[in-house]
């Protein structure tokens, strides 16, 4: 049955594209985890915050407009200008760097040396905080984000596959762009980590805080750098997901999508995040298509990734590419 096969291939390809986006979010986690040992639950909310800020700047919204109106009884909402996309992206990046500084200065500086699980819970608190601030600043209604990325069905692939299978694949242009950007981003990050001075310092910090300090690496600077990088990844992820499905609260839930990716790929590995993302993207789409929808009542995508990761971890606790967990007393 070639038609069934064609469907399956299409689902496979779409899963691959979704997987790239998961990997993109997971990458932000890996960066922070490697450099500071913090498992940053707030990564998804950072993506939401970045996307909200970007839309807000582009539309010329007044920050905290609702709050100002409520307190002062005024009626401000827009400055009345529109900022071009590339400038707005730059400004948003500045905001994310400031945010990275604040997070480091007011939260994690005081939590150095705490157990990882305490740090994890602190990032959950941070996620709530940032979600509230983001909503207060820019309002919580669903916004559309348009930075000029191509959208809609890719005609070329549709026609080519129609020639091959007699059935045109539906693959969104946006997904293709996202995949290309993700690949560029990953390459860039790997090059940065391997071949620049800051990248080397970052790896040194990840390896051993004390040793890094003793050879003159500034921990504070590196952590701010790492959080800024994570903010940058969050911004890219926010743009991609925001363009795909609108900027809204559910954007922050992509963090929950990225968690099983991390567990599968290993928390410490950049290639792991990519491979894990692809496996989960493809796996959940194929499972939904072949088993979930016909036999289990659908919507299995919510939990499939977690179950897969859970079962996988029982056999290999450090994930696919993670460093072997060695326990000492």
């Amino acid at each position, binding site marked *: 049955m070639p038609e069934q096969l064609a469907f399956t291939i299409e689902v496979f390809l779409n899963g691959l594209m979704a997987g790239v986006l998961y990997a993109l979010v997971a990458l932000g986690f890996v960066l922070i985890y490697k450099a500071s040992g913090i498992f940053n639950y707030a990564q998804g909310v950072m993506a939401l915050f970045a996307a909200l800020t970007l839309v807000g700047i582009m539309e010329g919204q007044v920050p905290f407009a609702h709050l100002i109106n*409520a307190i002062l009884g005024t009626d401000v909402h827009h400055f009345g200008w529109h900022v071009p996309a590339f400038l707005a992206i730059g400004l948003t990046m500045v905001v994310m760097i400031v945010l990275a500084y604040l997070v480091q200065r007011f939260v994690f500086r005081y939590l150095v040396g705490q157990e990882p699980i305490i740090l994890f*819970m602190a990032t959950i*608190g941070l996620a709530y*905080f940032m979600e509230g601030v983001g909503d207060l600043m820019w309002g919580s209604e669903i916004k559309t984000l348009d930075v000029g990325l191509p959208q809609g069905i890719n005609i070329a692939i549709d026609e080519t596959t129609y020639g091959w299978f007699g059935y045109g694949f539906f693959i969104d242009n946006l997904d293709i762009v996202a995949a290309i950007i993700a690949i560029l981003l990953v390459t860039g990050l790997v090059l940065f980590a391997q071949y620049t001075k800051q990248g080397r310092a970052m790896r040194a910090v990840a390896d051993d805080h004390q040793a890094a300090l003793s050879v003159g690496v500034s921990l504070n600077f590196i952590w701010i750098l790492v959080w800024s990088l994570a903010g940058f990844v969050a911004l890219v992820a926010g743009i991609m997901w925001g363009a795909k499905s609108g900027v809204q609260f559910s954007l922050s839930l992509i963090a929950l999508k990225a968690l099983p990716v991390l567990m599968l790929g290993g928390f410490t590995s950049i290639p792991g995040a990519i491979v894990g993302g692809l496996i989960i993207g493809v796996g959940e789409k194929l499972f939904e298509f072949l088993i979930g929808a016909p036999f289990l009542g659908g919507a299995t995508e*919510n939990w499939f990734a977690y*179950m897969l990761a859970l079962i996988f971890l029982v056999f290999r606790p450090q994930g696919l590419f993670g460093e072997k967990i060695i326990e000492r007393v």
Partner: protein
Amino acid sequence: MFYREAGDFNTSYPEDSQTFPIKFDRWRYYAVLFVAIFVIPFLINDYWVNSIFLPFLIYSIAAIGLNILVGYCGQVSLGTGGFMAVGAYACYKLMTSFPDLSMVVHVLLAGGITAGVGVLFGLPSLRIKGFYLAVATLAAQFFLVWLFNRVPWFYNYSASGQISAPERTFLGVNITGSNTDAWATYLFCLFFVILSAYIARNLTRGSVGRKWMAIRDMDIAAEIIGVNPLRAKLTAFAVSSFFVGISGALFFSVYLGAVEVGEAFGITKSFLVLFMIIIGGLGSIFGSFAGAAFLVLLPVALKIIGVDWLGWPTDIVAHLQLVVVGALIIIFLIAEPHGLAQLWRVAKEKLRLWPFPH
């Protein structure tokens, strides 16, 4: 001045090892019980019960349950919402399948079923540790919610996909359904709270609790001195889920009456209960109550201040609430990782010496 232990002599081991060895503490405890059982039921109305007392009591049970797992045994779980859903749906199935049995039996059985499910999802904890486990428990959260959403047997094939509690009585008084009295539901929940706190308190200071704490502090060392990690972790999961299941059953049957699973037992519920025990104090039964009270009262207080006094729109207050809760979590983790319970302990120490500190 207020808090004296001078002249308070224990002359036997049982006296020395009782839960409240200091007389003042003991009398305060009896006084609280007396007020809770004999005074409050006569004073409350529907508003008080539904907005403060029932959520406080029910979340206290959930917080005690989660505290056993996270605070005493050190296994962080983000699946509380899912386990509460198990309790709720087990209770619903039992209520509709065996209408003649007492509600108390239903709730306890629902807890038991949840304990079984908890053990099942606790099995990976033997291999996975720390936040790997925390993330793994999210599997329970998503899978269970999906299961109750998609398998019609669980909601008795009702058209809306909701479950709603049929009318049940206990000792001839309506407990569930639409015609309930404020005092009846309050006392019914209070019974389970006292039961849970009593069991939890005594488990955690007995040998089981010591094993949990040994596992929490360093699992390899605990294993070397002869604590069986399999048994310790799985009993923690079982006991914890038992309480969480009870709270889920009460949450559905007594408090809400009708439940849509994704809405009532979503991941936000898991975080809410986790926040309760962080703010209240990890590894403390009193902390579970304090945290539950704090996070139940906070939205009410914010709403009164923001909406009623200042006249702000409700959505701003809702967002502000997120900010406040998030900030509080961070502040507590930085300033007082042992939460309100530790503040209480410090206050007691201060009061012991009060007018004449050294």
